[in-house]
């Protein structure tokens, strides 16, 4: 199909750096982290004691930040950020929020509604 604006989706297939180098080939995080789960540096681990990729992920977690944001700011696929953050959680360097639950509480929806109306 040719859209009138051309086709900008082509570059998704472009060759790219091997994404799993940063995780030493691991593709499965040990802890499931939602895209929008928030993570935060606990201060328990000094970055110097970590490998470069872990330290660079940790450096992005100074305030609550989503997994998606860590991935974007590291210019890595989400799965890579997940593996690194899951490692950091396991050693206590990072804590994580509850993931958005599969069935959102009505009370949460009402808070969103009030918040949006007051924007």
């Amino acid at each position, binding site marked *: 199909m040719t859209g009138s604006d051309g086709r900008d989706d082509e570059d*998704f297939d472009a060759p790219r750096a091997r994404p799993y180098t940063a995780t030493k080939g691991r593709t499965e995080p040990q802890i499931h982290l939602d895209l*929008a789960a928030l993570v935060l540096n606990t201060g328990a681990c000094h970055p110097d004691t970590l490998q470069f990729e872990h330290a660079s992920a940790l450096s992005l977690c100074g305030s609550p930040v989503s997994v998606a944001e860590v991935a974007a700011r590291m210019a890595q696929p989400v799965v890579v950020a997940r593996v690194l953050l899951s490692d950091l959680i396991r050693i206590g360097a990072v804590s994580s929020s509850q993931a958005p639950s599969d069935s959102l509480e009505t009370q949460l929806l009402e808070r969103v509604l009030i918040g949006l109306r007051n924007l």
Partner: protein
Amino acid sequence: MASVTSDLYPDPVKIIIAGGFGAGKTTMVGSISEIPPLTTEEIITTASEDVDDLAGVEGKTTTTVALDFGRRTIHEQNLVLYLFGTPGQDRFWFMWDDLRLGALGAVVLADTRRLEHSFAAVEFFEHRGLPFVVAINQFDDAYRYPGSAVRAALQLPDHVPLLLCDARDRPSVTRVLIALVEHAIQRRIPGAAHHDLTGSTT
């Protein structure tokens, strides 16, 4: 898992902005976001059938999907909204369960010049039971069709809200999001026929 005090973290809320290529999704994300929209991507593994599973990796295909997203913190309610814009005509995001699971709902942004580009998203959310609204992005040079014509063209069920918006305009985008949340809440009221949760605060 160690419990975490709720005041340490705001509650994250995921909202999906879907629609056809060029419908203004990234513009919409940018209008509401407090940060310039970020881009990230995910590697999706899809199982392909009828291939022998020799070593646990064969028989699977990986594909990369990109998405733009923005963030909006609502301090007053200790919330942080994440708006994820799905890529143009790439349909692989349909396989990205993590994008959909736990999401509050979705906005299907439509362009009346290319309504057919919105079919896939409408069908997907309808099928998956995720609350969604359709927002017609009012491009300056687009003919203004009546809502009923758009609804008919999209085969949109009556219960799905249809709105007009300007994706560049923050108040307009906010109204779309409000309509989505109201719709999501109304769906939880059994047998409810509420059409007016939109009243201004008293």
